[in-house]
């Protein structure tokens, strides 16, 4: 493994050092790029942070002309759409993982697994176009009116599902995001399910468990932390997704409880407005938003990685 001490020392030792230096330098570059990105966002956003202080993340003002910027609406929109995405993607992804590991006949697992992975390969701009031209009109014509009629009149949760049936808004964006992160969660969850030691499952089956009981009482408890890691991975993707959301979220700077209302997200606000941001403070505010997004996704993705590391360490690499 780490066989040291080549027999031919002379100039090949120097060549070895150069090779070490080059590959080690490239490895450092990954760290440097990550650090430089964070630093550059913090530096670019400092004017906004200095000007607005903590109010930057609690204010809903977004007034390019008046020079007042508060990020609460995009932050709220990012969080709400990501929650909607998770509510859809988590059960579906776990279902797909279960189907691919325990239910489907062996010959069909490969093709279906690949088809689900292709869902992840489709560029997000295609999701966005499809969302804008096909899915949003579908939501406006069928789903929004239905929600207004059935869930709208209910107390407490009613206002969440009441709004203009325009198809553009947080619900549509959340659903599109959910579809986009299904393959990521499903692929990791499938690997996690496969990493559960067969003797554990076999013992449960031998005791007379049904498939569902094996899943709910053996597989899921055993793989709990890794499953949460897979979900965090999906969440990290959802938080930072830009193009698909930009198409269907509506770029509105109003805070609204209704999922049917247009809103904004951090990534969409940057994509829509950055090239138009002429004032220094405007640009700095958008970069400050990017800094917040970067820090939050960094934390979420790190947590995902840590949770997945545990099962990797125990059973070899899973992904």
């Amino acid at each position, binding site marked *: 493994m*780490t066989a040291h001490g*080549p027999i031919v020392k002379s100039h090949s030792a120097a060549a070895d050092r150069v090779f070490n230096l080059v590959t080690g330098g490239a490895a450092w570059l990954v760290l440097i790029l990550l650090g430089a990105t964070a630093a550059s966002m913090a530096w*670019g956003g400092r004017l906004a942070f200095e000007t607005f202080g903590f109010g930057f993340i609690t204010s809903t003002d977004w007034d390019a002309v008046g020079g007042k910027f508060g990020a609460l609406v995009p932050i709220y929109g990012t969080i709400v759409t990501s929650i909607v995405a998770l509510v859809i993607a988590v059960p579906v992804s776990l279902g*797909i993982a279960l189907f691919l590991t325990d239910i489907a006949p062996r010959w069909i697992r490969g093709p279906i697994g690949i088809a689900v992975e292709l869902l992840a390969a489709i560029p997000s701009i295609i999701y966005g176009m499809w969302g804008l031209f096909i899915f949003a009109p579908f939501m406006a014509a069928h789903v929004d009116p239905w929600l207004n009629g059935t869930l709208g009149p209910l107390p407490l949760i009613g206002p969440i599902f009441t709004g203009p049936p325009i198809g553009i808004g947080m619900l549509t964006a959340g659903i599109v995001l959910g579809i986009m992160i299904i393959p990521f969660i499903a692929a990791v969850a499938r690997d996690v399910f496969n990493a559960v030691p067969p003797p554990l499952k076999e013992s449960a089956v031998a005791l007379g468990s049904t498939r*569902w*009981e094996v899943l709910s009482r053996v597989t899921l408890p055993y793989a709990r932390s890794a499953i949460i890691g897979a979900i965090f991975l999906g969440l990290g993707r959802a938080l930072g997704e*830009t193009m698909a959301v930009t198409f269907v979220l509506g770029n509105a700077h109003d805070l609204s409880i209704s999922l049917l209302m247009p809103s904004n997200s951090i990534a969409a606000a940057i994509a829509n407005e950055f090239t138009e941001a002429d004032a220094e403070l405007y640009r700095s505010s958008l970069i400050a938003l990017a800094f917040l997004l970067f820090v939050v996704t960094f934390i979420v*993705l790190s947590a995902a990685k840590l949770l997945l590391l545990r099962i990797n360490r125990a059973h070899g690499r899973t992904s």
Partner: protein
Amino acid sequence: MSLVLLRRRAVDVIAFLFASGATLFGLFWLFWILWTTFKRGLGAINVALFTQMTPPPGSAGGLLNAFYGSAVMILLAVVIGAPLGVAAGTYLAEHGRYSRLAKVVSFLNDVLLSAPSIVIGLFVYEIVVRTSGHFSGYAGAVALAMILLPIVVRTSDEALRLVPDQMREAAFALGIPRWRVTAQILYKAALTAILTGVLLGVARIAGETAPLLFTALNNQFWSGSLSGPLANVPVVIFQYAMSPYDEWHALAWAGALVLTLFVLGLNIAVRMIAKRTSK
């Protein structure tokens, strides 16, 4: 007793149906999106698409300059990103395999892999566009290279780890210096896997839009130079799709179809290569 059994059976069947339904649900979106892209894109594909420039609003044209810009930027991104990625992957798998640096890099590389691409676009804007004073194809290529890098690091790391240790030991036993073992034996053994990793990376960056918005920007006209704004397929699709003009919509769908075919084709090709070599 039998009632309990019946209930357990019922729950099991429900779980079975749910999992199958979830899979159908996932595939349903795949087919819906692909079907739409094909239906709308096929009608808009013609010779002009590949021979004419992006048109002004309300008239016909093609996407030649956008295809060219995308191709050049992807190529340059691979030239920049792939060697660096393979080098870093080599460090993780070989020269620094048990070092603390390799552990940290391996961890953070995965974070970079899923980091929001729009932030990477802004970063390149700050360090390239701002310092040089203008949008450019170079900036776009750098942004794409930065997205490609972690993908190549991860895949080349894994490719090298799959090379059996006996091969390393045999080479060391012959007294071959370490760097030659890596360069002449391990790279050869892992070549296909490393190349498929790069191809996967190309498939990923071909559709990236967000990092190009503030770097390469767009250019309605033919431009062979990378030092100015450069047309590219994703940003053209974005702008045309968001516009109110039918001609632009049609072009956006045609571009979307070509892009989708390219990306899915690469993905399927990579899987076929991987399957053939693993047999």
